[in-house]
């Protein structure tokens, strides 16, 4: 084999290997939709992907909820408890006004949450829900939720926010308690809140002075 042949073969092989490299780079990104589809289809992870991506179909939720509420199962009770958290960069007050409720599967229930903006600026917040046990996620239908959209709060503004939900009657027998956790995020500030914390003291003081 002479040198020219050798170079040609090497170049062709290199081309093929580079294709693998590019393909695998793409595959890394493909893992993202793959992961979301898996979680969605299998109902694992307790994530509300549509809600988080802001693509929730409110009418469809309403319909599913109405359908579930046609057959209330009075013989069973499920305890639903609520947890609230703030991502570290958000200076709000946020809590559930009802810490926990007991419902029958199929029974529509409404509870309220309270939020107050403690910063000196307008904040666009987004609540991200998560359910434990993850298995219960498929059977928990929200008909109305403050997490379906951004919550815009002016400095010092406070709101009460509704959540209307129904636990579907086909919920597996072994689930008697469902925990629903909400985390509020500041949609505009993702760097761990370093800027917010820097600006905070004055703003907070101003709040308290009022």
């Amino acid at each position: 084999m002479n040198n020219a042949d050798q170079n040609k073969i090497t170049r062709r092989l290199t081309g093929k290997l580079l294709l693998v490299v590019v393909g695998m780079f793409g595959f890394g990104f493909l893992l993202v939709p793959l992961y979301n589809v898996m979680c969605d289809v299998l109902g694992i992870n307790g994530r509300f992907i549509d809600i988080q991506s802001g693509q929730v179909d409110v009418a469809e939720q309403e319909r599913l909820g109405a359908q579930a509420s046609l057959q209330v199962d009075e013989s069973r009770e499920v305890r639903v408890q609520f947890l609230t958290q703030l991502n570290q960069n958000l200076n709000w007050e946020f809590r559930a006004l009802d810490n926990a409720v007991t419902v029958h599967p199929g029974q529509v229930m409404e509870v309220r949450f309270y939020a107050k903006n403690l910063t000196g600026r307008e904040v666009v917040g987004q609540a991200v829900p998560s359910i434990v046990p993850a298995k219960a996620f498929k059977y928990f239908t929200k008909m109305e939720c403050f997490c379906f959209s951004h919550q815009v709060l002016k400095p010092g503004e406070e709101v009460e926010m509704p959540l209307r939900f129904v636990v579907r009657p086909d919920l597996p027998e072994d689930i008697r308690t469902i925990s629903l956790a909400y985390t509020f995020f500041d949609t505009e500030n993702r760097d761990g809140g370093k800027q917010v914390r820097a600006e905070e003291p004055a703003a907070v003081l101003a709040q308290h002075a009022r």
Partner: protein
Amino acid sequence: MSEHGPEKGIKRWLFTTNHKDIGTLYLWFSFIMLLVGGAMAMVIRAELMYPGMQVVNPNFFNMMTTMHGLIMVFGAIMPATVGMANWLIPMMIGAPDMAMPRMNNWSFWILPFAATMLVLPMFMGGDFLAGQGPAFGWTFYEPLSGQYDNLAFFIFAVHLLGISSIMGSINIIATILNLRAPGMTLMKMPMFVWTWLITAFLLIAVMPVLAGAVTMMLTDKYFGTSFFDAAGGGDPVLFQHVFWFFGHPEVYIMILPAFGIVSQIIPTFARKKLFGYSSMVYATAAIAFLSFIVWAHHMYTVGMPVAGELYFMYATVMIAVPTAVKVFNWTATMWRGAMTFETPMLWAVAFVFLFTIGGFTGLMLGVAPSDFQYHDTYFVVAHFHYVLVTGALFALIGGVYYWLPKWTGNMYDEKLGKLHFWLSVISVNVLFFPQHFVGLAGMQRRVPDYAVQFADWNFWSSIGGFVFGLSQLLFMYIVIKTIKGGEKASDKVWDNPEGLEWTVPSPAPYHTFETAPEIK
């Protein structure tokens, strides 16, 4: 090409396209990184010598564990294996050089820049002790890593490291597939060449995935995407999946070349052929394949469904089968061999023993229900230091002793070599074995302080650490002494070693096999 030697001075090293020069550069680079990463480990052990906070602040401690891990993985072990590949593969397959010598120069010279980029943030803000460097663990999990101010430096460094590895791997694959001497069929290749061929394929498959992961981090932080950012619909757990899809094959990238080195050393000093050559090849390939489908054994505690836990558990435990094939083959090679224990053999035998301990603890961790107890404790730290230090690093050091006479033309000092070995092998066990105990008892990893009941074992662990660290300075002394002079080595160096590299003179001439050798 004519009979020309290397250029003179610094230009030789900057512009060299010679596989031996580049191999030397890689090996020195990785040795320097070993010392830098080792110095960081000394800081870690100094802090952990006694309970309570005494030497550094917690953030600085976190920065040390992070940088230690990154530097050892990407700066020390990986470049050392590439250095070995550069020096040895062309000689082992009877090729004049690597397939793409100029790209080879680039693959190396990217590395110092990448390493600089990686460590630079530690010195930013003018205050080293403030710990401005990465402090989120070598696995850089989101969302913590996403909050790091100098993230762009880190990401850029990872990209450069990835490009270097990919170029190196393409070169190695092209060399092995296209430049073998006539008659050197695939199944006649030395084990080291086989393990590197498979490693190179692993690298081009997973380094791009790592590049994808850091690119997503970059756009999340600076361009408003939400791959891993929960506020915008992303999920930090997704990061762990992408990372470990790279990360698990990565641990095999570090160990397969070590398997290859040991498979070269043991037959020489047992004076027998490698037992079960073809089963070694298939086992290596099987390990590589399985390494792609077990990644979530690093994530048993994130809240996977039971079916997922079971799947990843069975797949993980299955890796023990081809791994055991290798260990049994090394043992069978030694069985009834006329063994002698020169320094390279000592390291290789220690490798077989101690790597196997790491394999066993790996199995314990692979069992999902028990991993819930061990996860994120010092037990995991003990596991991966047994496979990486007494595994990968021991094999590499053994390899240096084995081929150093061929590279330099001089014998190393056998007495000092043995001293280096015994110091290292004792201290490394004093260092890491107790970590199994404190881990099982619940001591968490990556925390600068601990409960007092762990104090005794940690004290000994630190003593072992300091001795092990200092012993590696002896290694440097031995290597430099051998380069400078010493008893002349014969061409074969050892009794009756197998392989084409032993058919060329010692030291190996600057150009070898410009005409392909005859393979019987």
